[in-house]
């Protein structure tokens, strides 16, 4: 049993190291192709773009979101903004009235039906060649759209372009931890972009060619992760998804553990269930790196974390039992074992060195993600917050997502 558990552990360890090395090798291959532009650019041709902003109880953030869209460096007559109130129960509807006289803004109200219903309603009204969505908790950088449209201009095969998502104005340790995580995500997405293997076209400001929806059909509910499902569907149909790393979108991140937990539970649950729905694309050469690398890597992460959590729990139970037995046998022992610190007792099993390799590569992705966003080589201090928050809390939402999947319990949006 012990041997079997060790075998599984090292097999998962091998795969975990493999994934990190794969990212790193992809980086070495492509590092000269990472384009970071500064200042304004212009296009020869500005195609029409419609941006839909689904709002559900967003009275606090919606103004900033819409103003960031109005400030985009893009010809006003080519940019249409649809604000859709998805049955808010707060003052969202009255707040967005402010924009009703803007020539390129339209406002709508509908019964609450979930984000994908808003997007589908929007898609039906669209007359432009391009379409995007901006979550009402996010703001776009002035140059974001024009830089993304430049990808479409240069690559006729591109069907969707996703931006770099950056944590907006983090205030506490939970948000700072997420800021670091978004750096990792920027690095990982850039690499997946090079591999043609992006598995999610995020709600904040992915721009699509309208024909994607004409051909593949509308958004689906997709376990509350419609932005992942559409990416899976596009990959399955060999539609190219590009990544524009210098188009910045600032998103408000959950400020409490509870909210973060809910958001991540929804994401991981969505990943697991969309992957189950699309299991037929797994490990098939014709679907490219998406099928051979991205999805398997996600599945391996879920398994690895589940396994390690299980192992830690067993160790914890053993430890507690040992302490209880000790207490019952010889009473309370207050002597600190640290007193006898000796290098002899440091663990030197192979997994320790492999863990160091994994951590080193994760730290590299943070540093490079930071460089891509902030333009400077630096190891951000909040990497400590990241390891603290995510190593403690991430196993919980992951296990909860697995549990919910097994019991078919669907997590709420927030």
């Amino acid at each position: 049993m012990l041997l079997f558990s060790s075998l599984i552990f090292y097999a998962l360890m091998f795969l975990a190291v493999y994934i990190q090395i794969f990212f790193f090798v992809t980086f070495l291959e492509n590092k000269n192709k990472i384009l970071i532009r500064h200042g304004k650019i212009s296009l020869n041709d500005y195609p029409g773009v419609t941006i839909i902003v689904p709002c559900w109880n967003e009275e606090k953030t919606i103004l900033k979101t819409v103003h960031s869209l109005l400030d985009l460096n893009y010809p006003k007559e080519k940019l249409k903004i649809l604000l859709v109130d998805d049955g808010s129960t707060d003052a969202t509807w009255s707040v967005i009235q402010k924009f009703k006289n803007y020539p390129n803004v339209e406002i709508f109200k509908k019964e609450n039906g979930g984000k994908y219903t808003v997007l589908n309603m929007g898609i039906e009204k669209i007359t432009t060649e391009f379409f995007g969505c901006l979550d009402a908790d996010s703001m776009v950088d002035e140059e974001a759209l024009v830089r993304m449209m430049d990808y479409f201009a240069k690559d006729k095969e591109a069907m969707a372009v996703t931006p770099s998502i950056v944590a907006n104005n983090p205030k506490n340790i939970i948000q700072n931890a997420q800021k670091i995580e978004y750096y990792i995500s920027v690095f990982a997405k850039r690499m997946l972009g090079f591999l043609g293997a992006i598995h999610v076209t995020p709600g904040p400001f992915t721009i699509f060619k309208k024909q994607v929806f004409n051909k593949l059909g509308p958004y689906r509910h997709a376990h509350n992760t419609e932005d992942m499902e559409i990416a899976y569907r596009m990959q399955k149909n060999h539609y190219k998804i590009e990544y524009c790393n210098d188009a910045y979108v600032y998103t408000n991140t959950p400020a409490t553990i509870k909210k973060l937990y809910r958001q991540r539970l929804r994401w991981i649950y969505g990943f697991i269930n969309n992957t189950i729905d699309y299991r037929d694309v797994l490990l098939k050469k014709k679907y490219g790196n998406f099928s051979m690398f991205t999805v398997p890597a996600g599945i391996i992460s879920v398994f690895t974390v589940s396994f390690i959590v299980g192992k830690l729990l067993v160790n914890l139970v053993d430890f507690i039992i040992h302490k209880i037995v000790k207490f019952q046998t010889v009473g309370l022992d207050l002597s600190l074992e640290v007193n006898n610190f000796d290098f002899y007792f440091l663990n030197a099993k192979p997994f320790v060195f492999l863990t160091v390799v994994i951590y080193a590569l994760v730290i590299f992705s943070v540093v490079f993600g930071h460089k891509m966003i902030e333009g400077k080589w630096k190891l951000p201090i909040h990497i400590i917050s990241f390891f603290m928050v995510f190593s403690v809390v991430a196993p919980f939402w992951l296990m909860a997502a697995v549990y919910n999947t097994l019991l078919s319990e669907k997590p709420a949006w927030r």
Partner: protein
Amino acid sequence: MENKVDWKKYLIVFFITAGLFLIAGYLSNYFSDKKIAQLENIQDDIAIDILSSEAQFALLQDLSCKTLSGSVFSGELRELGTKIEWGEKNLGLTSDVSYLKKYYSLLQIKDYLLMKKISERCGVQSAFILYFYTTAENCSECEKQSLVLSALRDKYPELRVYSFDFSTELSAVEAMLDIYKIEDTKLPALIIDEELLTGFHPIEELDSIVQKSFKLQEKPIETKTE
């Protein structure tokens, strides 16, 4: 869009990962060997101490007992015992560790015999416990007994506990098992003052036996000054 899969890259990454595994395995072995070497050093030191005490004892037969107050500091033997026990669980080099464990058992027997002779010759009160346990099967009583003995040793610095794994294949250990008629079905077993106790004995009971048999003093509280 054409989805290209660069198999060469998948293979290269595989080899890099395998290489890292080999390096990790090599490092792990390297440090394990270092640890074994450290244990061997401690054992050699202890062996020299014991041999030296034995030689001293033989030379000074009827001279002052003062110079023979102790062979090895029991602390060193104890440290070695702890490290070997940890090594058994964590190093995974069973043959090396079990060899060290045999050597350790032998050192304990030699220390025990020497201390016994010294106490007889010099009339010093000896305080020994021989402790037999097993690792061959799951023995929760043994684990508890070890905890009790550890606590007693902390309480009485003069108390020497010699612990022997029943499954150690060493003739000297087997001889002790014969002498004291220790059976593997009755573990843990303790020899205190030539008396055999089998099964688990709680700390209160052993404490009173130890106090009665050896008239030991509790470890003075170090912070106390006069």
